């Protein structure tokens, strides 16, 4: 599936805005993302395996509430920095 990376995290992806990841759940996709781009996951996901307060993750336009959400190979994951900063 395709993961869309916000500008704040592209220092990890060699400035790529879209990267391929694999996994059957959002949690697995995040692990796959970390495998390809070490360090990126902890900036998005807490040590308690929760999405950080000012990060939103959308799967095909629907906001995912937790990492157990299933994903499929043709899905699009958007990682978004929330508008909480104004």
């Amino acid at each position: 599936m395709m993961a869309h990376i916000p500008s704040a995290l592209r220092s990890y992806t060699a400035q790529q805005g879209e990267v391929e990841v694999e996994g059957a759940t959002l949690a697995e996709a995040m692990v796959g993302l970390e495998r390809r781009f070490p360090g990126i996951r902890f900036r998005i996901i807490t040590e308690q395996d929760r999405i950080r307060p000012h990060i939103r993750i959308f799967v095909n336009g629907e906001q995912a509430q937790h990492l157990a959400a299933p994903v499929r190979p043709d899905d699009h994951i958007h990682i978004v920095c929330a508008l909480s900063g104004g």
Partner: protein
Amino acid sequence: MPRSRKATSPQPTTGSVSLLIGTRKGAFILRGDRTRRTWKLSAPMFLGHIVHHLVLDPRDRRTILMAARTGHLGPTIFRSTDFGKIWKEATKPPAFLKVPEGQQGRVVDHVFWLTPGHMSQPGTWYAGTSPQGLFRSTDGGVTWEPFSGINDDPQYREWMGTVQDGTPDGPKLHSIIVDPRDPTHLYFAMSGGGVHESVDAGKTFVPLVKGLDIVEGFDPAVVTFHDPHCVRLCPSNPDRLYQQNHCGTYRLDRPSTTWVRIGKNMPKNVGDIGFPMVVHPRDADRAWVFPMDGSTVWPRVSPGGKPAAYVTKNAGKSWVRLDKGFPRTNAWWTVKRQAMTADAHESVGLYLGTTQGEIWASRNEGATWTCIAKHLPEIYSVEAAALRR
């Protein structure tokens, strides 16, 4: 506490000084020449990151660690081994242990404080976080683990209190101190949660809060209520500690366990509330504070809008106002706990960063002050660094 051993008083330095500056919008290095009269500001590093602390490793005088986060992303630590030219991120930043599903685990919001380990332990660093957590790295800051067990100790968790017991920017663990004579002798402080000491390399800690005042109406025996802002150990006499607290300025001479409030000797119209505490590198009777207005609703600005440092040259018996060069009036800034420091020159240089983005310096131990950088973001930390030549 450890038996008394001879302290080694650091020799005066003569080389150039660089200031490592952490701000709300990135990090900067302000490089000075040998005279400490000419300063050159670097380009911002990690522009937009919230940098709470930027610290040089005194063991190699090349490595710098940076505690950073952004408004959106999780906290991390960046590391440079060439004095800030190239940075790499820690592969395992400080993080609390994951708790079983269904339990409420803690999450590191930001790394607040960095302390290099003992000179005999190259590669060892300590970190304090918000909410309060104590972490250690033994590989130069690349990977971090919870240290000492206090993070999950029920008694310590109680003393840490809740987020409402912390600072407006979150509760913090800070002032991690390693006794220069003994790597197993450690101190740390928590806002809130008191000062703590270990004599067994961190296996156990005990509170060290006797003699400290707390907010009126509460029980000083309850460790949770204690709010040390900054604790410093005197390099020339490691048995002496100074502390700037939410409720006054203190000195502790070990083996005593009772802090003495030395801020009572400050002018009444200024008071003894503030954040930073700076000690002299070679004279344990000398220390500096930078008072702020802690009255009514805690404006947290210079009292009366008239900034001034104060020095004691007799371990707190008396204080002298040092305001020559600062604005005389209508200067409504203050200095955070990590944002005032000293170098080790014969005539000690003092440096402070303001909440309004200015760096002020004194080449003569505070007698006169000069603004050496302005228009920076809000300054969180300033450390004076002597580079390897």
